[in-house]
């Protein structure tokens, strides 16, 4: 869970996180969602990734499921 007080929502849940198993530290973040015809994440996914990046300083990697 990522607190995003300055974001479109106050908290966000990263879809998939790669976590160091002995420190609980997040090493990777991945977001899964729909993409637009020109291959960009749809607005709700973009907003989520923007919020997460603003807080953590890292942008989740996006994986579209409607290729």
């Amino acid at each position: 869970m990522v607190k995003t007080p300055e974001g479109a929502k106050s908290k966000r849940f990263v879809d998939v996180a790669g976590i160091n198993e002995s420190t609980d530290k997040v090493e990777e973040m991945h977001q899964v969602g729909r993409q637009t015809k020109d291959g960009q994440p749809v607005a709700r996914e973009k907003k989520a990734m923007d919020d997460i990046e603003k807080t953590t300083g890292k942008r989740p990697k996006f994986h579209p499921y409607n290729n």
Partner: protein
Amino acid sequence: MGHQLNFFLTPEDLRLLEQRLKEKCPVVFLDYRSQGPAPAQLPDLEVAEFGKTRLSVLLVPPDSLGALIFRHVPQQGYWTVDLLRSPAVELSRCFYDGAILRRGRLYYDRGFYDEAGHWVEKPASFQDWAKKVFSVARKGLERDAEQFAYVGTNAQAQRQEGRLKLVENWE
């Protein structure tokens, strides 16, 4: 659909949680990994060595041990429990080094989509048990709305004394 309860628990808070769980609901503690497709039981929830011990473990109702689904990870040479398809609650214990305490959580899925795309609901008995585990965990912890999490008594005391910082998992 997944359910989660976020918290900040020091090792002392975790011991109290373990005690409450043992008193209030039948539970078995399991390692995520095993040498074969069989549960690897843990005696307790204690973290042997922070920075070396894997922090995620599983809570399982004793009568559901036979329903666990195991996956082989041949490249790594171990078996692991498939949390999505198993009647189990994941407990991510908080990393603690005396100065910082990282967020931990309880998590379970109430069902999953099978390979044909059909929703498979986990047994009601498991879901009732999991709700009870969450309820027991919440009791005795203080809700911190700003953190979107519950905080253990010991963690709260250390924080108020300025000896402990609650940090996020990316910090």
